[in-house]
Structure formats: C-alpha cells, structure tokens
C-alpha cells in the first residue's frame, strides 16, 4: 500500500506542476482553462490520497471540495466566459513562449534550490515534493505577469492559489477545514468578480486584453 501511496503522491504533484508549465506553453485560452481543470483534479487527488493515508476526515472533505470547486466549477465558469469569442488566443504575450518556457525551467530549478532547506527539516515523502508546489506558485505568478488576455491572467492567479494549497497539503497535511473553506470561497468570489469585469469590458469595447484596455482611453 505504501508504494502505491508514494507513487500516487509523486504523480499527482508532478501533474500539478506539469499543467502549470503546459499553460505557459499552449496559446489557446480554452486549452489553458481545461488544463487548469486537470490541475484542480490532480490537486484534489493529492489531498484525497493524503487524507486516506493519514485517515484524516477534514483532509478528505477539503480534498473533495477542491475537486468540485477547482476541478469543475471554476474551469466551467471560465470556459463560459471565454466561449464568447472562441478564437481568443494568447497571440502576443509580453514574454514570447520559448523564453517563458526557459524561464519556467529556471523557476523550477530555483524553487528546488530555495526549498531544499525547507524539506531538510522533516524529510518525508510528502515534504520532499514541496519544491513542486513552490514551482507552481512561481510559474503561476510568471503567467499572471506576462500574459495579456484577461482569462489567462485569471488562470495565473488560480495557479498561484493551487500552488499554495499544494504546499499546504504536503507540508502540514492540510490546513484546518474552515481555513480551506474560506480560501476556496474567496477564490470563487474573485473569479466571479473578474467574470463581470470581463463581460462588461468585452461588451464595452469587444477586446479583452488588459493592455489594449489602457490605450483605448475613449
């Protein structure tokens, strides 16, 4: 049972970081949002595996919540928003895709270096995977900074949140249920608010790239 637990944990955390890197790689906004959904599911899976291993009911509940919220609800909402112009693609990101992928590689190595001391505190299977969570945070933040499309920026924000949740799960086997509930609700709130902002922006000027927004001071 232990080998399966270790393998599942490693693959789950690996998929979380892999989806983050893939969102930098792909250009289609719809593919980016579906990748976010996959990442949410993987994050939920990690929580559930940890919950089962430590027989911790709160962890299982929050894992289920993450699967529902981050795996299904948020991507659904975002897909609905990006369905208005199906062809919207990340055409001119601030940093071109090859450079951002190399940056992602550097960020991954950086997160490994920075969290080496963190994992040396209590080196267990779970804590050794913390660099992947830190890398997801950094890659998410990089995406938030360098992408022009509003939906991609929202996805970057949620990547950061997923990264934080992953680190929390791996380090302290989950935050108390209430805190988890609170953070998930406010992430949903943020998404919904940005949703309205996006819709009004689009109805107003039919362009949803934030930078163009600045120049269009009509």
């Amino acid at each position, binding site marked *: 049972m232990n080998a399966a637990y270790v393998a599942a944990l490693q693959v789950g955390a690996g998929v979380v970081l892999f989806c983050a890197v893939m969102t930098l790689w792909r250009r289609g906004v719809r593919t980016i949002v579906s990748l976010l959904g996959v990442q949410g599911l993987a994050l939920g899976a990690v929580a559930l595996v940890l919950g089962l291993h430590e027989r911790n009911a709160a962890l299982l509940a929050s894992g289920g919540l993450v699967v529902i919220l981050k795996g299904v609800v948020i991507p659904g909402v975002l897909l609905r928003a990006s369905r208005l112009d199906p062809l919207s693609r990340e055409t001119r990101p601030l940093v071109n895709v090859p*450079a951002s992928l190399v940056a992602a590689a550097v960020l991954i190595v950086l997160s*490994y270096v920075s969290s080496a001391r963190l994992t040396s505190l209590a080196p267990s299977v779970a804590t050794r995977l913390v660099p992947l969570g830190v890398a997801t945070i950094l890659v998410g933040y990089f995406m938030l900074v360098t992408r022009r499309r509003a939906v991609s920026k929202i996805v970057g924000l949620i990547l950061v949140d997923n990264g934080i949740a992953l680190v929390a799960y791996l380090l302290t086997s989950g935050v108390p249920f209430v805190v988890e509930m609170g953070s998930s609700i406010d992430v949903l709130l943020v998404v919904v608010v940005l949703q309205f902002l996006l819709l009004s922006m689009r109805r107003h000027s039919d362009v949803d790239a934030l930078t163009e927004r600045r120049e269009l001071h009509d």
Partner: protein
Amino acid sequence: MVWYLLALAFGAAAALAGVVLPRHGRVAVSMALGASSCALALVASVQELVCGVAWTVHVTQLLPFSGVTLSLDPLAALFVALTAMVGLAACVYFLGYAHGPTASRSGVSVFMLFVLALLVVPAAANVMGFLFAWELMALSSLVLILSEQATRPRARSAALWYAAMTQAGAVSIVLGLLLVASSAPGQDFAQLAAGAAHLSAAQRSLAFALTLVGFASKAGAVPLHVWLPKAHPEAPSPVSALMSSSMVTMGVYGILRVGEGLLHGGNLWWWVAVAALGVLSAVYGSLHATTARDFKRLLAYSTIDVMGLVLTGVGAAGVLYDTGQREDARLALMASLLLLVAHAAFKGSLFLVAGSVERATGTRNLDRLGGLVHTMPTTTCLVVIGAAAIMALPTLSGFSSEWLLLQGLLHGFADSSTPAVIVMLLGVVALALTGGLGAVAFVKVVGIGFLGQARSEGAATAVEVSRWMRLAAGLLAVPSVVLGLAPGLVVNTLSRAASAALGVGAASPVARGTGLLLSHLSGDIAPLELLVAVVAVLAALLGANRALVQRRARRVAAWGCGREEQTPRMQYTATSFAEPLQRVFSDVLRPQTDVEVTHAVESRYFQESVTYSQHIADVVEVRSYRPLISLVMRLGEGARRLHNGSIHRYLAFGFVALLVVVVVLS
C-alpha cells in the same frame, strides 16, 4: 630541469638572433632556434609529467630584488607542454608566413619573446617572477597585434582594447597576490601557500576575487571577454594561434594555482561562481560563434565557448572537492585539463588554417569564400579535421574530453548537496546547448567557406599555400586525432597533474588500453574500437558500391528547379546560414539592422536604391562597456575644467587637501 633551462637559453638566443641578423637569414635562423627551444621545453615537460619529479631552482641575478624562482610540478609541466606543442607549430608556420612587416626585426624578435614568456609563466614560482613573465607576455602580444596595422584598419582600436583590459587585469592580479603575500614569510609560492592559513576568510575571498577578475579576463570569461574577439583576428595568424591556444589557458592556470594551490580551495561559493562564469561564457560564446561572419572572429568566440566549458569543469571540480568527493573532483579537473590540451591542438590548427586561407584568398569573410575544396585540398582536409574535433564528433579529441567532462558532471548529481546539484545541472545544460550551436558554427565554416562555388574573385583564384604553413597546421592536427583515439595514454599524466593541482593522492588507474574505463562509475568508451567499427562499415559500403554500380558517375548541372544559369550568388552565405538561429536568439544577440531607402528625385513614391546592412554588436560591450567609457569621458571633461592653468587654483587644491587631512586625523 637541465632541458628546461636549455630551452629558455635557446629561446633567448632566438630573440637575439631576430634582432641581430640581417633580413635574409633572420627568419630561418631565429625560427630554427625557436623551434628547437619549444622542442626542448616539450621534452622537459613530458619528462616531468611522466616521471613526476618536481624541481625548483632560484636564480638571483635576473631580477634585481627578489630574483626568479622556477619550479616545474606536474600541473605547470602540463601547461608548458601545451605551450611548447603550439609554439613549435607556430615557429614552423612563421617560416612560410613571414613577409613584409611580420618579418621585420621587431616582428621576429618580439614573436620569440612572446613564445619565451609563454614558456616561463607556468614555471614561475615567485610573485615577482610570475608578474614579470605575465607582463612580458601581455606587452609582447600587444606589439605583435600592432605589427600588421598597415594592412589591418581595425588593428589599432583592437590593440587599444587589448592593452586596456589586460593591464586592468594585471593590476587586479597584482593586488590579489600582494594581499596573499602580505601574511607570507617570503616571496615564493610555497611560502605564500604556507602563509595563506593566517589570512582571515574575508581576506582570502577578496584575494581570490581580485585574482579571479584578472585571470578570468585573460581566459575570456564573458563579462571580461570583450578584447578577445577584437584582438585575435587582427594579430598575425601564428600569434593569434598562440594567443588562442596557450595564452588564454594561462588564465585557467592562474585560477587553479591561486584558488587551489595558494588558498587551498577556500569556500564553496568561489567555485560555484567560477562554474556560473563558465556556463555563461560557454552559451554566450557559442551563440556568437554561430552568427559570426569573419572566420577568425568565429574562432575567437569559439575559444570563449570552450574556455567556458573548461571553467565549468574547474568550478565543478572545486565544488566537489569542497563537498568532500575527492575522486569525482579529480575526474572533473582531469576532464577540463584534457579539454584544455585538446582545444589548444585543434584551435591552433584552425587559426593557422585561417591564416593560410587569408593569405591565399586575401579575405577572412566567410560570405566571400567558397569552393576552396578544389583549389586548396590539403588545407580543406585540415579544416575538416579541426572542425570535426571541435564539434566533438566521435573518435576525435573533442569527443573524448567532452565525454569525460559529462561523466564528471553526472557524478556530481549523486551527491545531494544543493550547490553541487545546481552546478552539475547548469554544466549539463551548457554542454548540451554548446554542442548543438558549435555544430552549426563549424558546419558553416566548412560548408560555406570551403565547399560549393567561389563567391569572390579572391576565392576563385586561390592557390595552395607554402609547404611550411600546411606542415605546421598538420602538426597540430595530429594531437587532435591521437588524443581522441587513445585518451587512455594521456589520462595517467593528466591525473597526476590534477592531483598536483588539488593536492590529492595518486589516482586509481583510469586507462584501459587506449580507451577510458572509469572504475567507480560504470561508464566507459573505447574510441579506437568505435573508429574501427565505423571504418569497417564504410569499407563494406564502398566495396558494395564498387561491385553493384557499373557506370561511372556522370557530371551534370546541379538541379536548380529548371533555372537557366546557376550563379555563385544563388548559394547560401554564412549570414543566411545562421539567420534562423539569429532570429530565434535575437533578444540575446540584439542584431542591429538598418535599411536606407534613397527615393527618386521626382517623387517620394519611387525608390532608387535600398541598402540593407546588418551588424551583430557584442551585447556585453554595447550595454556595459560603452556606457562605462562614456561615463569616464564625462568625468574627464569635468576634470578638464579644473585645470584652467591658474597657479592659485592649484595651490588652493593643495591647501584644501591639507585641511582635510588635519580634520580627519584630529
């Protein structure tokens, strides 16, 4: 020891002959003396490497205060051997190359002084002796760069950059060495090493940083490399071959001597910095090598690339040594030393070939060359061997040294301390990227420069160069093949040199016949057997080809999609060959393209001519050196206002200074 002193005597005699003898016999006699001095030095250093008895001699009369101490331990012997090998070929090359200004009195004698200085630097074992040899090397190469300024317009500015940067480097080396010598009982390196224990950690780091700046600029590490692509193309070919093969390695020798010898390894972050410097230079050098148009400038950037890899190996060795893995540290250092020797051989041969091409066709610009395979067959074979070695194609010296470096890096991963892992990861990525880019650069050199049709009048009328020049380049191509096929023979002497550098015990045997067997790591290669296999299959294919195909090949016009005539301008040039890569890495290379459109007089809508010109400036130079220079110029302007010639102002300065001192002291 006697051989080595005899070699120095012959060198001095050669320099003297260069000055004294009349023009007719001068080149022949001094080159003969020079070649024999290099041969003697080679014998002395190989004898030292093989039987490993270090000797030290103190000669008081030469320098007024402290005299000169010469000592040859395995590490220094390796560098003397490397210099002697390239020096021998350069002297032979000089015989065929010398005409006009290079064969003048100063040209010949300063060339011999340069070779002499290069032989003395590794052997110098006291501070004054080392600095004297270092300055002699720098100044003689400066004079040699200027020796052909009549025909080379950019020689003067290149010499200016070269002088400024080498002297700045020399100053920082002097400061570093004085800092180390401050707590040492005497002047000799042995005493310095003993005295270094009393230095505080901060002082040792400062000393290492100062000497690192000086030696890294000499080794062409990136932020301090700007003089190298300027100085090497302008120097006469035998001189640039010597500069690129042995003078650049003196920087690595200095880092090893001061870092490991005097300061006993110091702390971990020194060597992480050296490795980072190496990775940066490797990637930056290979990028600029792929997009360079001038043959010698391409070779100069490729020197920066390989020196970067060597510095990465040295950095990795230092990190492994500090984290307690003596065995892997020696392996990484052996790999970088093998790469150093291999690079000296094939880079020297390539620079001599570049000189022959420039002499035969009158130009170094790859866009104007082409079709030399028909007119200069031997030179083409030599460039193919050199290019194959530098691209690390199997069974040549580049391949076995880069393989050994990869093994050293790989086994740093086994140890889990974070800085070691980062250095290994950076090293592996640099090795991979430079491998690919190096292949593009040297396919461009061979494919565009030597194959296809001649693209200019000079290339079309090229004729094979004199026997001496081809013999010299051939001499240097031999080690590229021998080191590649049988690294096992050389590796024991290398491990002795590496152990001497790291102060570690004798190495476990690594050679298995001619191949390399790394006992404690399950990885080995047998290049000789690999070459036998490839040659066997090639022979089989040739035999099958002869048997199967009866008709001889028919010569027809090349297929150009039905176009009538096929002009040389329709071929790809060096610029267009590297254009895709330049576009991919455009934000690193920052190419400046300017398009001038001259409109017709009648109306703006009709253009008479459009001229497009593109130039890849060295980003480091443009972004950091130019602003620095303009800042210094502005300061100069400000200072000029101070000198308005009134005596009262000058006295006032003296007075104010006195006041300040009084206030400060009270």
